[in-house]
């Protein structure tokens, strides 16, 4: 009812800046290409050994790989893998991490201690190692990669949510609900959560880029999504063997990967900056801050 209007206004202000606008355009374009990859008349699996490891040309914009497959087609299909994994992983991480942070921050005490210790355990290993260890246990598949990347994202959601909830918990309007008789459940879901969305949203964007990177890294190490499903990391992995003869093989897919990550990052930074402006603008003109 009201929330959508606020979100629209926020999106409007976000997209009035060139960086975030370009990022969104790129990401939407990429998503569309990935979604309709099958109808583009390009085949990521069609081999043409005679034309292997060719540089970029009119027929193959991104050149061909060691089996003569069109790298451009593989990049587009790889985008699908990447985006699906990222979306799924962020969903898992958020679905687990946000409630953890909410409960830990809202109730504090032993619940907080127990939950956050559990989160600490996940943090003790670098994300890539955690994902690798998980894949070692559950085996190598697309869903394994998705779940493993998702689990590594749980701590960030939990911590961001908890920090936000903790600061909200001290605000009088939360105490006020308690004072006029709202139950803890009402307070947590109806008062605290609606006020905690913005940093969580930023986290969604930030983690999307982390997830894409992680998925690619796993594939690069040979423990990600098994071939022949096209994946950016996998292409870099193979491409690296042909650095001398066909540098485009590793360089071009890597470029697309990098631009995707940068787009998410730019978007995330734009959102953070807007939210900071809004928060500092809330208390009036803030002339005090103008002094140096």
């Amino acid at each position: 009812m009201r929330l959508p209007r606020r979100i629209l206004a926020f999106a409007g202000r976000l997209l009035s800046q060139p960086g975030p606008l370009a990022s969104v355009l790129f990401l939407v374009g990429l998503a569309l290409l990935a979604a309709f990859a099958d109808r583009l008349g390009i085949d990521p699996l069609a081999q043409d050994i005679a034309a292997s490891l060719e540089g970029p040309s009119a027929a193959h914009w991104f050149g061909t790989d060691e089996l003569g497959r069109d790298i451009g087609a593989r990049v587009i299909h790889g985008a699908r893998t990447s985006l699906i994994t990222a979306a799924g992983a962020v969903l898992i991480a958020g679905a687990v991490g946000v409630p953890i942070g909410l409960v830990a921050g809202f109730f504090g005490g032993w619940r907080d201690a127990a939950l956050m210790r559990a989160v600490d355990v996940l943090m003790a290993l670098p994300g890539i190692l955690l994902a690798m260890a998980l894949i070692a246990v559950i085996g190598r598949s697309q869903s394994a990669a998705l779940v493993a990347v998702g689990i590594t994202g749980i701590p960030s959601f939990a911590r961001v949510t908890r920090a936000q909830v903790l600061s909200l918990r001290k605000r009088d309007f939360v105490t006020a609900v308690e004072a006029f008789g709202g139950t803890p459940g009402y307070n947590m879901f109806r008062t605290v959560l609606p006020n905690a969305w913005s940093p969580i949203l930023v986290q969604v964007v930030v983690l999307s880029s982390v997830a894409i990177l992680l998925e690619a890294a796993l594939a690069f190490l040979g423990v990600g999504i098994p071939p022949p499903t096209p994946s950016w990391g996998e292409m870099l992995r193979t491409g690296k063997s042909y650095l001398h003869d066909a540098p485009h093989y590793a360089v071009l897919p890597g470029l697309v990967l990098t631009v995707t990550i940068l787009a998410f990052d730019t978007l995330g930074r734009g959102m953070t900056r807007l939210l900071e402006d809004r928060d500092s603008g809330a208390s009036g003109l803030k002339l005090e801050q103008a002094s140096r």
Partner: protein
Amino acid sequence: MISYLLRRILQLLPVLLIASVLVWGMIYAVPGNPVAVMVGENASAEQVAAETARLGLDRPVAVQYAAWLGSALRGDLGASIHSREPVLKLIGERLPATLQLAALATLLALALGIPVALAGAVAPNSWLDRLLSGWSALALGVPTFWLGILLILLFAVELRWLPSASGYVAFWDAPLQTLRNTALPALTLAVYVSGIFARFLRASLITELNADYVRTARAKGLPERTVVMRHALRNALLPFITIVGIMTASFIGGAVVTESVFTYPGIGRLLIQAISSRDYPLIQGCILVILGIYVAINVVVDLVYAYVDPRIEYS
């Protein structure tokens, strides 16, 4: 202060304990009979039974864990399934290379990141700041494996200045050789982490530069240089210590990708090899050692904190 440190260590203990349970338990989560996996696919039923007994897997779970933890604490991490060599020895061979890479990468990242943060923070939103922020974003966004490939292309394939794959030589034996070998992987890691450093330090510096005590310092008539370096930077470096600690810890094992781009013989690559060959004792050993170093670095960070922040003694 001693009590503060002890308390922090006590907080880390449960993490380590739970983690060790998980590491130990991961074998059981593997589909199929773990012993069969460990003995090999062609093993006979007797062999499996013998191995089960040898590993004590027929005993109650808690006893098994206690025995495992006990020997792990005594330094006995078992033997690799593949090479039959003690896990500890395998790890010991790789650790120096990893530590050396981590140290060099951290130093490089600090050298790249701190000046960028300083230059940006003293004039926020100036063209220089925007440029440097863009650089940080780029440093952060470029995947290390792609950057590694680009660096190899440039320095090894095109210019032929540096080797594309690097073995490990102890620094004291051949310092120059070491630098040549470690330069590219360290630079790859450092570029990424310098982005994190710069972004974090810039933000905390800007916060500090807007703090009241900085205004006080200016009101005293201190030169701007002194205001920034003596007042703001020192305060901004406090939270930064934690970030440096986390990042350094993440180089231990977390540098797998970079290590494999440059085929660098670190602990991360050992772990990959272990995973791809399903060498469970080796996997467990690697993870335990990485966790141990993570905890140790955390303790060091706390020590540094207690040393530089006068408030800690009394809190």
